[in-house]
């Protein structure tokens, strides 16, 4: 579990991801979502995106990876990813940064702004919460 002082502010270690068509095809396989917008470059070239784009849930999985990497396994039993907005597509052939910034810590829970950004800027933005250990290491203090 991440350990922080209440009221502290901290940057969550950044993840770096490169997306290829193979990445997108692998997500199609695991999700069963073979929408041609994701998997058929010829079809997708005629769409408003001008080419294939990744499934929206792929960058969501990166955000989960980011948060488990920072908060540890307790995130699986008390983590939240909230108000996630998809503001631009994630495209093959591009590099992405997955970032988080802790904004507040109260009652042993951190509030974190999270983002996935590519060469053209933010693609996904949202908020997260994570259980964190306070200065006492997560134990209740005794009188």
């Amino acid at each position, binding site marked *: 579990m991440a350990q922080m002082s209440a009221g502290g502010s901290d940057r969550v270690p950044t993840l770096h991801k490169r997306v290829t068509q193979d*990445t997108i095809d692998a997500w199609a396989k695991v999700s069963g979502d073979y929408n041609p917008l994701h998997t058929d470059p010829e079809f997708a070239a005629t769409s408003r995106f001008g080419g294939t784009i990744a499934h*929206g849930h792929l960058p969501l999985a990166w955000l989960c*990876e980011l948060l488990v990497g920072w908060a540890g396994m307790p*995130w*699986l039993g008390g983590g939240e990813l909230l108000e996630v907005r998809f503001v631009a597509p994630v495209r093959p052939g591009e590099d992405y940064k997955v970032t988080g910034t802790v904004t507040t810590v109260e009652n042993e829970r951190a509030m974190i702004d999270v983002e996935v950004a590519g060469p053209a800027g933010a693609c996904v933005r949202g908020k997260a919460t994570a259980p964190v250990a306070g200065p006492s290491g997560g134990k209740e203090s005794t009188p």
Partner: protein
Amino acid sequence: MAERPELVYDDLGLGRRFPEFRYETTPELVEAFVAATGDDNPAYTDGGAARALGLEWPVVPPGLAGIWGRQAYLQEHRMPPGGILAGQDMVFSRPVAVGDALRIQAEVTRRWEHKGRRFVTIESTARAASSDEVCGIVRVTAIWPK
């Protein structure tokens, strides 16, 4: 095999509950997830590493929630082309052991129109088949194309 019908806005009445969806979490599924995401946290695949982290067993990556949350309402349908994922929430309350199944109940919790666009929110609640405890909730908001 006949193609599944499209799930259209008129099908998505407020409060509609979809049939319970059973999602099997197998080691093969987790390996496919790791291959797709590059998330190679050994807690998902290695029993020894999981125990070192205080877990009894390898656990299911939370990023799979996006998949089960979607499949729960598309069991008998397919998305019409042109849908846009507008927003999403995920809330996790309990780790899931790899090999356990999830029982997922999806329900339409909100629908509205704004500036000619039709929005729908579907909430999917997952329970561990082995314990009936809630493991996670996924809320998907999408602009429905037709």
